[in-house]
């Protein structure tokens, strides 16, 4: 069937290629050397940075996004609020870091709107390197797409909370707190954790935003990988890039599998 052929060529093959070639060096010899390279400081550092950044942005995204999801879910199902937020979330979650990066530059970059306001008001220029530092500025920018992503993923679960459960809890003598503690939160937890994992994977894989904002160095894994392919670097490092890519795949695959398992539990309860 054409479908299988297509997927085979364009998805499986590249993935396998990456995995495969990670085991070879420039000369074509089978080796684990590429993986040894991974233990280089810069690379280890970039993996750690990526993971930390992903974790932080996932936490921010899931918490704030969770609250926003609640707000949307408790509104009218056909209302303008829900449509607007859902559409906006769809855009922001997908729409690639370049636009995002520029949005933030326009706000708090050197020429940014807020920057100017603050300069006028307080005389300090807040745009410094901090925006480009991962783990502080980048978390802020990443939130911009993590929160919408959270809304998109989590909304079905929230919708799945039936009003009868709340009413039943009440009729049995429970307060709002009881309801949340014994019923709603336990029910939402698998979906929430699943969403959190998804956010993590998304943050980890993000390339565009970082590429647009970070001008020096490659503090994150995706940037490192890209770096091994650009012409600045001597050839032969490419396969190290593939080893890193393989590393990424492994991490993301683990995360997504956990996510799938959690979703199955959630869907059993919340359909």
């Amino acid at each position, binding site marked *: 069937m054409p479908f299988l052929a297509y997927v085979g060529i364009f998805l499986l093959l590249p993935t396998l290629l990456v995995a495969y070639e990670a085991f070879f060096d420039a000369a074509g010899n089978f080796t684990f050397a590429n993986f040894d390279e991974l233990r280089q400081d810069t690379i280890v550092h970039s993996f750690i940075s990526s993971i930390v950044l992903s974790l932080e942005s996932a936490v921010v995204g899931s918490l704030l996004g969770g609250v926003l999801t609640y707000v949307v879910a408790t509104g009218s199902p056909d209302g303008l609020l829900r449509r607007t937020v859902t559409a906006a979330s*769809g855009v922001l979650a997908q729409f690639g870091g370049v636009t995002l990066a520029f949005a933030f530059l326009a706000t708090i970059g050197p020429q940014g709107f807020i920057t100017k306001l603050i300069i006028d008001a307080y005389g300090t220029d807040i745009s410094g390197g901090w925006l480009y530092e991962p783990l502080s500025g980048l978390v802020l920018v990443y939130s911009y797409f993590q929160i919408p992503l959270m809304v998109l993923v989590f909304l079905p679960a929230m919708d799945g909370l039936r009003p009868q459960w709340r009413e039943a809890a009440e009729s049995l003598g429970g307060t709002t707190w009881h309801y949340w503690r014994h019923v709603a939160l336990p029910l939402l937890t698998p979906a929430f954790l699943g969403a959190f994992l998804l956010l993590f994977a998304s943050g980890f894989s993000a390339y565009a935003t970082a590429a647009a904002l970070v001008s020096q160095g490659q503090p994150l894994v995706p940037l490192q990988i890209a770096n091994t392919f650009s012409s600045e670097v001597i050839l032969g490092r490419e396969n190290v890039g593939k080893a890193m890519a393989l590393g990424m795949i492994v991490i993301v695959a683990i995360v997504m599998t956990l996510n799938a398992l959690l*979703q199955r539990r959630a869907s059993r309860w919340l359909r």
Partner: protein
Amino acid sequence: MTATTGTLTAVDTRTGVAGPPRRGLQARRRRRLQAFRGVVLVVLGLFFLLPLGAMFEFSTRGVGEGAPRTMEAWKRIVTDQELNPAIIASLELAVITSVVALVLMVPTMVWVRLRVPRLSRVVEFLCLLPLTVPAIVLVVGLGPIYRWLDGHIGGSILTLFFAYVVLVLPFVYRTLDTGLSAIDVRTLSEAARSLGSSWPTVMLRVIVPNMVAAVLNAALLCVAIVMGEFTIANLLQYVNLQVAILQLGQADASLSIATSLASLIFAFLLLLILSFAGRRTRRTGKDPSPASGSTPSAPADGAQDPVSAPVLTPIVEEI
């Protein structure tokens, strides 16, 4: 009606009993909820709208201190020589990708559903696989393949669609899957076949019209994704819309910011319009209570509306 709906009907000032309207407990609870929602929406709204507003502000700045606002940059979106081909290329790619993805997926999914249900797990797995492989990794593996393609088909940017289709697979799959689940494909096709139609006819005239919302949904998702894609294009060294924006960033900040904002708004409007188109087959909330205060019905039954293609939520329903 529970407090979780949070929509209060117009305060009825002509209650049978004289006194302040709605001093009841449910009403109080609803008011508290509304207040909470309001606060959250305002705070987050600011967070999200501020950068957008800043983008607009930036892109309309005049040259020099105290210069008046101008739409210069915006006008240049259409005229700039470097930007134009990129915009057009992205648009074309978006269309091609959607078409190819749909043509590939719709028959396959219908076929699998009808003839080989056992394969559905496999198809599902394959379709969700792209989510596991980050774009950056995919690009690494795609390098050699594209080099081969370049040699044989030419290096047009439009060849990107091959990769893009893979990229949109999970979302298209999810959307179509929800749409297909909502209609009884087997019964419809059997009915059509028993009336004498051939398979292509069944597909085109019976099944697809019943999932228009899902198909449209999928198509527009493709468009949004393709328009926003950067990683693959950049690393394969093509210049699509996003790449162009970045490249322009240094040279002409106003223009690139204006373009960014424009593309965001474009995609947003697209998706918003779609959400209205899908209204007829919407999954309603499970709450049977009066909504929006306009046509209240006594909350007599908990019967659910038929579940159909939700508008945007399917893209994230994982297994």
